[in-house]
């Protein structure tokens, strides 16, 4: 394949990564934004979403689409409830003390991951995509014969991957509307600005925190359900998304939602493109170093604004 | 070196965005005197002393200590020159004993000389009346006692200039009387810059007064001069029942 078609293919793969990443990172970002909590177990909620999706689809027979749609509904709900429960039982009890929260969520990480290992096992398990038509893509070229259009071998995307991109856009738009337009969003924003005043105005801050934590985990689970027909479910699959989501949230400016989306697109696309042309390990080294440097020298993130 | 003024500022200004908290403050602090800095809430008093000791970076202007320009020095180096600072909101090492709190203040100057540090700690705690509580944990003290501890930590540094940011805020009347007595025993020993709301404390301790209003120096002089100053009366004393 020539360079041009190759780049297009890499960009499309990157767009899929970006879509999943935007969902996962958004969950982390909302939790950090509203609660100031760094949830180290976020990647495990993602993994749990994928594992539950596998479980649901393997229970349901028939057309793969039925199982998939059910999983898309059930997995995020279950994960969200579990996270909300963890918030109530653990994080609320330690009063969201920053150090202890980190330690507790590290503990949670191992509990979820190892429990999955004991029940689900160490194997990677696939989930059938609901539909998976290969769509060949054309490429244009000015050759000796003038302008020509042809179909390079290997330049294609599946209908499912296109669906993932669309679904992510749809979910994020819906989320945006909820946060900016609805009463629930208003309560969330009030709690984020000043939890004590919110409490004084009758906002049940404890309950808001609980459901925000659940929502954050649920978003990760949605991302995982979408990715699992492409990637397979595995008990260690939460590690990379956690790291990438962290990177995204930091680059986007801690707690800034539009920043998170833009950073997810930036990072997902460049991850896709860099991994096609360079060693993925090198790409990860560069990405982690960049994040560490950004945090050290521009702690408000690339897109965040300086506070006084 | 032994100039009349221990500290002076020239055109000291602090702007937050477009809003000026302090505008072109020229200020002189005579050596060995007790200067009170007064003014209504939001006049910029804390911003001003924050710029003196380096907690708040100045937008422009100069600070001179003992004749030398200290603009470029970070806070800890200014403190090392002999400027002690007590916080407006009590800030002690809540998890450590009183002894350790004061020892930390003394140790920076006295170093590893354990005997000298212990003697200094005992002396200073006795002076503020906390001697019998030396092994208690600072966080367990009453608010008034924490304020006294804060002052003890300042004294333990043997400061050349001692800046106290609203030291009597939240103290009971009897404690305020003790504070006034304590400050008066320091008179002549060191230079004191006192931010204070309680006019009774100001009149009983200060030899000089500077009045800030809306980020600018409104008046400066002896307590008598300030009392007689019409502008001050209008801006500040008249509206205060203290």
């Amino acid at each position, binding site marked *: 394949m020539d360079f041009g078609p190759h780049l297009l293919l890499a960009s499309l793969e990157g767009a899929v990564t970006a879509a999943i990443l935007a969902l996962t990172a958004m969950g982390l970002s909302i939790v950090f934004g509203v609660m100031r909590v760094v949830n180290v177990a976020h990647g495990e909620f993602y993994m749990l979403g994928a594992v539950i999706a596998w479980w649901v689809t393997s229970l349901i027979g028939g057309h793969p689409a039925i199982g998939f749609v059910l999983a898309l509904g059930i997995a995020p709900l279950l994960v969200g409830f579990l996270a909300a429960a963890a918030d109530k039982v653990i994080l609320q009890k330690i009063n969201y003390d920053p150090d202890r929260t*980190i330690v507790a969520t590290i503990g949670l990480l*191992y509990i979820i991951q190892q*429990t999955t290992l004991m029940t689900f096992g160490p194997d990677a398990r696939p989930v059938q995509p609901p539909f998976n038509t290969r769509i060949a893509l054309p490429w244009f070229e000015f050759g000796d014969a003038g302008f020509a259009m042809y179909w390079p071998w290997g330049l294609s995307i599946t209908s499912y991957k296109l669906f993932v991109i669309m679904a992510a856009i749809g979910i994020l738009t819906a989320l945006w509307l909820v946060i900016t337009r609805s009463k629930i969003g208003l309560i969330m924003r009030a709690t984020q600005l000043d939890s004590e005043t919110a409490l004084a105005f009758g906002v049940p801050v404890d309950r808001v925190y609980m459901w925000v934590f659940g929502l954050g985990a649920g978003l990760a689970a949605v991302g995982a359900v979408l990715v699992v027909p492409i990637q397979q479910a595995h008990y260690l699959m939460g590690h990379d998304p956690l790291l990438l989501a962290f990177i995204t949230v930091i680059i986007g400016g801690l707690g800034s939602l539009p920043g998170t989306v833009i950073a997810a697109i930036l990072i997902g696309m460049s991850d896709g493109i860099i991994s096609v042309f360079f060693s993925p390990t090198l790409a990860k080294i560069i990405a982690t*170093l960049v*994040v*560490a440097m950004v945090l050290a020298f521009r702690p408000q993130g690339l897109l965040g604004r300086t506070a006084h | 070196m032994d100039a009349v003024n221990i500290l002076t500022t020239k055109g000291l200004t602090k702007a937050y965005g477009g809003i000026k908290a302090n505008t072109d403050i020229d200020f002189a602090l005579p050596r060995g005197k007790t200067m009170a800095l007064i003014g209504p809430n939001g006049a910029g008093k804390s911003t001003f002393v924050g710029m003196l*000791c380096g907690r708040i970076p100045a937008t422009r202007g100069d600070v001179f200590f003992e004749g030398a320009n200290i603009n470029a020095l970070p806070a800890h180096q200014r403190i090392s020159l002999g400027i002690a600072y007590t916080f407006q909101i009590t*800030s002690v090492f809540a998890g450590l004993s009183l002894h350790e709190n004061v020892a930390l*203040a003394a140790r920076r100057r006295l170093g590893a000389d354990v005997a000298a540090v212990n003697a200094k700690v005992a002396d200073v705690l006795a002076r503020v009346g906390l001697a019998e509580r030396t092994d208690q944990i600072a966080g367990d003290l009453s608010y008034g006692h924490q304020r006294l501890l804060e002052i003890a930590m300042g004294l333990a540094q043997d400061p050349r200039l001692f800046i106290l940011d609203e030291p009597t805020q939240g103290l009971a009347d009897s404690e305020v009387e003790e504070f006034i007595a304590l400050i008066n025993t320091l008179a002549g020993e060191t230079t004191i810059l006192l931010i204070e709301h309680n006019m009774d404390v100001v009149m009983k301790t200060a030899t000089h007064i500077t009045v800030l209003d809306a980020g600018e120096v409104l008046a400066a002089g002896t307590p008598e001069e300030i009392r007689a100053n019409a502008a001050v009366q209008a801006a500040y004393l008249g509206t205060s029942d203290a």
Partner: protein
Amino acid sequence: MTDSQRSQLLHLGVIALLFVAFFVLPTYHVGNLSRIMVLAVYAIGYNFLFGYTGLLSLGHALFFAAGMYGLGLSMELFDLTTAPALMVGLASALIVSAVIGFLALRTSGVSFMIVTLMFAQAGYLTILYFGSYTRGDEGFVIQQADRVLFGLDLSNDTARYFAALVLFSVCFLAVARLVQSPFGRTLVAIRENEERARMLGYNTVAHKLKAVVISGTIAGVAGAAYALLFGYAGATFATVQYSIFPLLWVLLGGAGTTIGPLIGVIFMFYLIDLSSDITSAYMLIAGVVLVLLTLFAPQGLAGELRKRVFKWMP
């Protein structure tokens, strides 16, 4: 008896106990103890930064690995003998911790944790990337000929035990002394209230940097000793898990106490040892312990003991 005499007695007692343990305990536990002592050195280094200075790093595996690979690679690639290789291990940990400390200390709190985590992750990936030298996850064996220090064959069980004991004792006593010194007291002051410490005239940034370097170098020495005593260096020791272990040990044993690190390692070691007989998911135990600790005993075993019984404990 004054408090400082008591604590000196306690420290010497712990060392004496470890000395006697060699002659009393069965071989299996003696082997475990040599490993525990080296890991306790790692924990002591971590505790110096976390327990005494109040900085929570999630990247100490990088320092441990710097020591380990400093020693291992200089032996593998440049044929250095044991003593110089050990010095290279120490020096690499010192340099790495100075650089990381300088960069990471521009931040604080949660950002500090994430920055250290990110640097450690980059370090781990770098070890994988240069797999042709480091042999990545698989790691490499340190030849027995390279494991002779001052005429002692460290692959021998007895020599290994006492080498570990000497290293542990030196670090244990040195750190116990250091935290009582004016420097150590200032670090505690920074942990308690950094702004106040700064406004007493202490250069808090310089103090914290020194603390990171001391802590990182001790961790690196532990890493080098681990490679030397157990004859193996591998990328596993650079993973996030090995950054979390010392945090776990110190929290369990008691942050900011001198004996906490040892207690924490012993407890965790045997907890995992016993549970790995039952299940392969032994890290589940670590997770449960972490959560229970944050909920019920945030000061750890030694910390709770100090609070309730022995108030004089260092």
